């Protein structure tokens, strides 16, 4: 099969993976040799009309798979065309795109061929060749096979910046129903192993940077060589949203557990997407993109704004805990807790400023810096360049008070963004 055709098939197969991040790893560059660099933050080299960025060459090594996960286009029972890259082909493609400055590195995943170990060996082989043979300093993200040999997992961490294992579905029941060969226990166990490796490596490196060695006279080495970093970009995972009956509460609580339990860097949410040649067991629906968006916003609130999972998704109708589709989660929280507002910009603590709809971490930090020296006035809110209609009803400062806006029963309706009405698709 021609390389171009393989690339088409294996990029097609990889486009349902939501992760594209290439940030948060150790800084490296090619000054000492090799090729490539990683900065603190990743670079998006292009964008496709689905609004997602291209940062990494995201491909599957092969889309042959012995598993039969219902939501997956590559499941054994699907009739899509199949292809397989050789290790050398992936290495060459990565280096060529990299030299053209089209990508930050490689995100390599694979269908399970022959066995988990065999597949994992191939994935590690690509990373090893890039790092050791070509001195590649760019970003490598490897999708890890949960039930592969722990030694392979350990080797993967030496070459990869980030490792990920997809949790796939927020509940054990969902996984049992839709991914019969995958086991929740195995996935969690592998995540735990990665977490231990990452934590140990971090601790060892910290220790090494503190201790000095007794060195020979005139030796310039005063510190022991730091042990090699293990997946310095941490681990991430992906959850498919809308393929099973789990509600937003299930999803957020699961994420929250993953963040605290395994110190995951990111949980990605992937709205279940209609795929060609779908299985009869999944009704085809338009993807609930707004729901996915709200989940990312909620995730953000937990990671950067001090919200707890249970605050973001209170129990709703029929016991379903769903995020509002009309309002972003912070606005929805504020509308439900109007007694906590208005917040006085001149006196409120940081935690409370962070709860004001429309104020981001950057804006809050600016307000705090300025108010140490002078009183904040209404003109200052404008200069923050924040969405005024969202912020004004919830704050007060010199020259501005929301008056009785907060009591307005129509406030929630007035704050709905004018856009195509979002539709929550019902699956079951």
């Amino acid at each position, binding site marked *: 099969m021609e*390389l*171009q055709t393989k*690339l088409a*098939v294996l*990029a*097609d197969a*990889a*486009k349902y993976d939501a992760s594209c991040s290439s940030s948060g790893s150790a800084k490296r560059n*090619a*000054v000492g*040799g090799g*090729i*490539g*660099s990683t*900065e603190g933050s990743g*670079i998006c*080299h*292009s*964008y*496709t*009309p*689905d*609004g*997602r*960025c*291209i940062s990494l060459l*995201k*491909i599957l090594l092969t889309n042959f798979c*012995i598993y*039969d996960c219902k939501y997956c286009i590559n499941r*054994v*029972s699907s*009739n899509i065309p199949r292809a397989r890259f050789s290790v050398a082909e992936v290495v060459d*493609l990565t280096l*060529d*795109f990299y*030299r*053209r*400055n*089209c990508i930050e590195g490689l995100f390599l995943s694979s269908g399970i061929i022959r066995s988990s170990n065999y597949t994992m060996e191939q994935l590690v082989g690509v990373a090893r060749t890039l790092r050791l043979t070509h001195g590649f300093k760019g970003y490598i993200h490897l999708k890890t096979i949960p039930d592969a040999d722990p030694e392979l997992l350990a080797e993967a961490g030496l070459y990869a910046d980030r490792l990920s294992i997809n949790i796939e579905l927020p509940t*054990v*029941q969902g996984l049992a129903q839709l991914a019969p*060969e995958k*086991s929740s226990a195995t996935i969690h166990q592998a995540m735990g192993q990665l977490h231990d490796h990452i934590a140990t490596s971090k601790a060892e490196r910290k220790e090494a940077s503190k201790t000095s060695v007794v060195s020979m006279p005139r030796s310039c080495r005063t510190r022991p060589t730091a042990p090699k970093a293990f997946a310095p970009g941490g681990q991430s995972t992906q959850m498919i949203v809308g393929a099973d009956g789990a509600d937003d509460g299930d999803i957020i609580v699961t994420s929250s557990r993953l963040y605290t339990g395994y110190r995951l860097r990111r949980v990605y949410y992937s709205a279940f*997407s*209609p795929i*060609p*040649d*779908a299985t*009869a067991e999944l009704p*085809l629906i*338009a*993807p609930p*993109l707004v729901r996915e968006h709200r989940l990312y916003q909620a995730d953000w609130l937990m990671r950067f704004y001090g919200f707890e999972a249970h605050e973001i998704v209170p129990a709703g109708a029929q016991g379903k805990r769903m995020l509002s589709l009309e309002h972003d989660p912070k606005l929805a929280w504020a509308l439900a807790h109007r007694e906590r507002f208005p917040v006085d910009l001149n006196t409120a603590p940081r935690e409370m400023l962070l709860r004001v709809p429309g104020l981001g971490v950057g804006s809050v930090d*600016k307000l705090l810096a*300025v108010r*140490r*020296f*002078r009183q904040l006035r209404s003109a200052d809110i404008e*200069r923050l360049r924040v969405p005024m209609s969202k912020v004004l009803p919830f704050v007060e400062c010199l020259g501005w008070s929301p008056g009785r806006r907060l009591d307005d029963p129509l406030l929630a309706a007035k704050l709905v963004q004018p856009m195509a009405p979002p539709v929550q698709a019902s699956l079951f």
Partner: protein
Amino acid sequence: MAAQTLILPGDGTDFAHWRSVARWLWSQQVPPEQVVWHTEDGQREAPDLFAPPPGPSALAAPASSPERPLTVPRAWLEQAEHCLLHCDPDRFALLYRLLWRMQHEPALRHDLLDADHVQMQHWIKAVRREVHKTHAFVRFRPVALADDPVDGAGPLHVAWFEPVHHIVHAAAPFFVKRFANMRWAILTPRVSLRWWPDAPDVAALAAQGVEPDFALKPFKARPGVLSWGPGASAEDAPALDAGEGLWLTYYAHIFNPARLKVAAMCKEMPRKYWHNLPETQLISPMIQAAQARSAAMLANAPTTPQRKLPQRELPRKPAVKD
């Protein structure tokens, strides 16, 4: 004091020069509203008839000692240097006005929400963003040269890029570090950069026509010289090649037609960069076909597997309790 009309050399982005001018203006106590700022480049494009001819300006006059020394936070200087790279012709005036005001209103340096500060931050952000977008959207194409070395440095990689602001030099260190062993050149309308990975020092490039004043050896321990020269045109860069064809294939296939979000794409990849990105020619057909492609996915009845599936023993699962 009479109004001062100043003409800054070139594009006006020489920070050391702007700083000395500002110092001189302060020493003469020229208030900001009485200074008219021009650049040589700007004068060439749209001359101000009342501006003095470029050349040694009034700065040559001996500066009388200032009333008060000009003081400014070190961090502000770094920011001002960045701000100067913006293309807005009012940036010189804004910076001098802030400088002036900071001497008279000591609290101003802490006031991130002062209108002038906000404007300055806005311009700095635009400059940073374009440096970032340059890192992202500069695309190299390999050109085989007759003198291609056999030492592994490979062909010369050439890129054509059209920034809005004066950010080429600010963006260069990224490429030097990332592609330290690769021979590359970045051509833009105002300036061209070239990286010589094996040149031991600046002098070694004299035979290649590189002027010593327009070259820099960025690293102590390794060879490599960054040189810069006059601007170029799009025709000087190589055309699309087969390798880039592979990139277009990848671009077309990593797109999920069921998730059209055109506004999100345009926000992060502004149209002004599109004409130099080969994949953007695919966008319009991709959008047009997307609706039909996802409709077809929804309309097609689920299929039954054509291949004979391997009979595999499924792991026994405990009954799931709700």
